[in-house]
């Protein structure tokens, strides 16, 4: 224990004396939050939609057909009642629902006025707004064809498509993604680099010759980065709440527990990389290209997964960050409890155990 503490103290000296590491550690979260919070957004396609058609008449059918042929929507199985819609939202299979009243065509022709209901998933407000815009446009278009404008009077219908998402609180959606990304960088990249650095310097040899247990070397290397990741996590949460007005709906304890699970997964990955590489550059390259890029692209927070070719969707299933992203979104933004994310938690835990086992088994206690 005394030995371990001496080792951990040394690791903290390294971190706090290396300006670049410090910059990555504490500069990156701030930059990411600002970047994603104010600069970037994404376009949405293949939105899952369900339709509750109480009317079943010509007019409603025609609108549904228009939605079906649009490339923006994928129409899921129709639902039979209002309660089913909520279940589908919780499952995450739809982003939007459209409700027709029972006497749709009748009200339209007799009263000259009829109401439709659109329900969207507000935990993902960018998509929600875009969905509403798309649907409104489709309906307006239909209306225009149904009742051509009277002669000599012009009707101008703007069809709005939002290319650059301005002034909407899209932060909700990307915060979980940024958290996943930061963990990937701090826990995976920095950990692997710090171990490989000892190999490069030749100090690893000295450590292996000492009575210090090789497994303890790994633990001593991982502990500081675990602590730093948690500190980082707190920074991001604080920034999100006070700078971007994100409301944390779910249990903070659950969010922390899930985050620590994810950090451990990332650390195991970092240890695994460091076992397999002998230079800091290689370790950095593998962590960045092999881990960070997929996290950025295939987790679903920057680009919707629904929009991707199937091969990438398959790849995304082996990324730990995908599950973490789903969990954090569900808990933090939708306020759901453990019963909704146990499956993802289980997958993540399985991955952590798997990676850690390989990493420990692979650690070379001997140099040849």
């Amino acid at each position, binding site marked *: 224990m*005394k*030995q371990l*503490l*001496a*080792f951990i*103290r*040394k690791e903290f*000296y*390294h971190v706090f*004396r*290396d300006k670049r590491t410090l910059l990555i550690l504490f500069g990156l979260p701030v930059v990411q939050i600002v970047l994603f919070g104010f600069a970037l957004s994404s376009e949405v396609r293949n939105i899952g939609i369900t339709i509750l058609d109480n009317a079943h008449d010509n007019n409603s059918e025609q609108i549904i057909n228009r939605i079906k042929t649009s490339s923006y929507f994928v129409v899921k199985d129709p639902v039979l009642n209002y309660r089913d819609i909520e279940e589908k939202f919780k499952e995450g299979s739809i982003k939007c629902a459209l409700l027709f009243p029972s006497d749709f065509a009748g009200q339209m022709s007799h009263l000259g006025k009829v109401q439709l209901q659109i329900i969207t998933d507000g935990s993902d407000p960018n998509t929600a707004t875009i969905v509403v815009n798309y649907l409104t446009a489709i309906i307006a278009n239909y209306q225009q064809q149904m009742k051509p404008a009277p002669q000599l009077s012009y009707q101008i219908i703007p069809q709005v498509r939002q290319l650059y998402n301005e002034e909407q609180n899209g932060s909700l959606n990307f915060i979980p993604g940024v958290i996943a990304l930061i963990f990937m960088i701090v826990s995976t990249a920095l950990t692997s680099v710090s171990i490989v650095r000892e190999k490069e*310097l*030749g*100090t690893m*040899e*000295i*450590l*292996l*010759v*000492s*009575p*210090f247990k090789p497994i303890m070397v790994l633990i001593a290397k991982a502990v500081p980065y675990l602590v730093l990741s948690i500190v980082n996590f707190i920074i991001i949460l604080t920034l999100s709440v006070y700078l971007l007005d994100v409301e944390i709906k779910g249990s903070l304890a659950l969010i922390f527990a899930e985050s620590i699970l994810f950090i451990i997964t990332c650390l195991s990955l970092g240890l695994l990389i460091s076992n397999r590489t002998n230079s800091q550059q290689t370790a950095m390259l593998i962590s960045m290209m092999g881990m960070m890029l997929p996290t950025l692209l295939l987790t679903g927070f920057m680009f919707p997964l629904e929009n991707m070719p199937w091969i990438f969707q398959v790849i995304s299933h082996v990324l730990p960050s995908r599950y973490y992203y789903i969990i954090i979104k569900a808990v933090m933004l939708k306020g759901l409890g453990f019963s909704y994310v146990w499956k993802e938690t289980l997958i993540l835990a399985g991955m952590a155990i798997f990676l850690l086992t390989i990493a420990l088994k692979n650690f070379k206690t*001997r*140099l*040849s």
Partner: protein
Amino acid sequence: MENKAIICKNLTKQFGSFRAVDQITFDVEQGEIFGFLGANGAGKTTAMRMLCGLSFPTSGKATVAGFDVYKQQEKIKASIGYMSQKFSLYENLTVFENIEFYGGVYGLSRSEIRKRGEEMVSTLGLTNEAKKLVGGLPTGWKQKLAFSVAIFHRPKIVFLDEPTGGVDPVTRRQFWELIYEAAANGITVFVTTHYMDEAEYCKRISVMVDGKVEALDTPANLKKEFNTHSMDDVFYQLARRAQRTADQS
């Protein structure tokens, strides 16, 4: 048995079809300075790693400080010190932090570390530098510090793998004074080197060629045996016999 620091019998290490170390047999006395010579790729480093518990022998027997290299590696590790050809202290830690770290790794108590550390720093004349980063010290001092750290936990045997590479002659001379001092305190020194003047400082030396120990005796006896006045010549005559190319390690 008790006064042998290292006993090697037919120790062999095989990498695939390549026999890096081929049945080497030798003893090292306690408190002796033992020079372990050989051209690059002769198998010195591999042999040394087996003795330090960094690598399992393929066959043969060896004990280090009375412990078996197959079964008692943990005990071996606790009773040896090691200094590699690469500089092995942390440059962004201060002199004293390095001492604290290595002392801690070897399980010394904090008060013990402080006491011995201060002693060591003043012996080396580094008292004013104790709180400075190691990276800023001149190479000669770094090297002497690395050696002192390697014997900080008072091991029975210290393994030095080309400790004076890239160091000027004056510093090398001072470095060897430290080695003599350590040996006088009863620490067995096992050292590899390419400098033949350093070989002369050793009590006995062995010369490895192609994984085998081709010669083993005091420097004076070896010179007599090879009928020459310089160790350079002894080494040259032996190294010429090598069949395999250098830099396999």
